[in-house]
């Protein structure tokens, strides 16, 4: 167990470790991308400035794109553009949170000002209520069942049981999920992600530089992103994840690969429903077929569709904005570093982050080639 830390310390340790892994010195970082929930109001309102100062660097490219948990997948796309354009040579993406230690997560939602004045007064448990509204609509339109949603959590737990770093590793059954406390119908406690501390970092550089460093490089083949709404009532279609449809299509087109070429999938599992809607929107199955798609342990270890192989936000960790861990796990899988949970011969990975209340989406297709 680590000593209690601040979000700045968490990021510094994650950055230190990622740079060491890459074989790059902190002084060579000239691009910095940060999304945060810490330090607001205060130093966190200008997170790239705060982190550059804390790290002791003077980046010439920064990006504080803040779109919730999908921010880090968007950062990868933005860093790739900056690297290609020569605006920086080494880009560092960091995230850290101590929300569990601070007990800062509450169900109350955002202050009722500007657009939130039309939502916060209704007492929707936040964020789960927004996802519950989508789950209810998905069930209504497509006949999706609570058992199908529970399969997502059960498969995630099976992966987590293979990961010594996962928070929740004990056995979990569909019945356990269904008998856990109902929080916001139709979503139960065990349909929801964990609340943990944590942090992560990603180092990106040009392909030539990466090859010269000696560590197995993972290439960014294609990215896409989209935002649709913040107020839940403005979601274009509550049974369909429009942001992921747009982001995924762009990423596949830019990568020039098809769905069948993807060996491992890491998608944001804030709630079980998020996964079903994301798989449908990305085109791995048709709209409404997500429930059937994840049934029979298809996404579990040994299943035909390896997904969320670290145990996901449901069983591995979820420190506020989980998106950076999707990228970390995809890179580890492609490099073959995953031990008992390793997906055999994984060459191409798809990563999709979702932020806000199904508000934003960003997709990255990563490859050994």
């Amino acid at each position, binding site marked *: 167990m680590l000593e209690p830390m601040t979000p700045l310390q968490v990021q510094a340790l994650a950055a230190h470790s990622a740079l060491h892994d890459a074989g790059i010195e902190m002084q060579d970082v000239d691009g910095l991308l940060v999304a945060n929930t810490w330090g607001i109001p205060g130093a966190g309102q200008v997170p790239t400035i705060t982190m550059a100062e804390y790290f002791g660097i003077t980046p010439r490219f920064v990006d504080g794109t803040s779109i919730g948990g999908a921010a880090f997948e968007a950062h990868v796309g933005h860093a790739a553009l900056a690297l290609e354009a020569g605006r920086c040579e080494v880009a560092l993406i960091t995230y850290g949170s101590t929300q569990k230690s601070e007990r800062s997560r509450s169900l*109350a939602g955002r202050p009722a000002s*500007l657009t939130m004045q039309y*939502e916060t007064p209704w007492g*929707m*448990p936040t964020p789960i209520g927004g996802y519950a*509204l989508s789950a*209810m609509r998905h069930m209504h339109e497509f006949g999706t069942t609570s058992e199908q949603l529970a399969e997502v959590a059960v498969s995630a737990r099976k992966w987590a049981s293979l990961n010594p770093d996962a928070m929740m590793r004990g056995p979990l059954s569909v019945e356990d999920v269904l008998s856990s406390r*109902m929080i916001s119908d139709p979503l139960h406690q065990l349909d929801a992600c964990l609340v943990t501390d944590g942090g992560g970092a990603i180092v990106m550089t040009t392909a030539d530089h990466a090859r010269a460093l000696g560590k197995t490089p993972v290439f960014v083949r294609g990215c896409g992103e989209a935002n649709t709404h913040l107020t839940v*009532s*403005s979601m274009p279609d509550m049974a369909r994840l429009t942001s992921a449809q747009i982001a995924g299509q762009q990423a596949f087109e830019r990568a020039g690969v098809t769905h069948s070429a993807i060996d491992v999938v890491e998608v944001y599992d804030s709630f079980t429903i998020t996964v079903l809607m994301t798989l449908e929107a990305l085109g791995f199955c048709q709209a409404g077929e997500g429930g059937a798609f994840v049934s029979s342990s298809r996404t579990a270890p040994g299943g035909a569709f390896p997904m969320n192989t670290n145990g996901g936000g449901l069983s591995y960790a979820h420190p506020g904005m989980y998106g950076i861990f999707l990228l970390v796990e995809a890179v580890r899988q492609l490099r073959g570093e995953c031990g008992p949970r390793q997906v055999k011969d994984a060459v191409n990975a798809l990563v999709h982050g979702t932020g806000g209340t199904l508000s934003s989406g960003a997709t990255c297709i990563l490859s050994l080639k």
Partner: protein
Amino acid sequence: MQSQYDKPVPHIDEESRPYWAALKREKLILKRCLACSRHHFYPRILCPHCHSCELKWSEASGLGTIYSFTIARRGAGPAFSADAPYAVAIVELDEGVRMMTNIVIENVDILAIGQRVGVIFEHVTEDVTLPKFKLIGS
């Protein structure tokens, strides 16, 4: 009016003042676009459909359909705890816009998507009247 209301209330601003003022008079009003004839919600200074700024307020029928709903089994923060379980819904008004609201009902377990609802006005503070909904016969 409740003597003490400790739930979050809207921070009424220059843009929303006519909306909340109308609710206080028990009228639900929407912005309607003169260029494309469509309504939108929440009220904006430009039409989110065609981006025209030629808009006017119009009174809504107050009738709609439950597009989706959830039952909060525990409150969204301490102020709501005593109310749980309660229903939070997205209602699609007959004018074609969706808004978040509460469905006021004794037995939350009979709610279903597609049920018809009508607006009711809950005066919660001196300035704020919340447009909630109740089931109506179809």
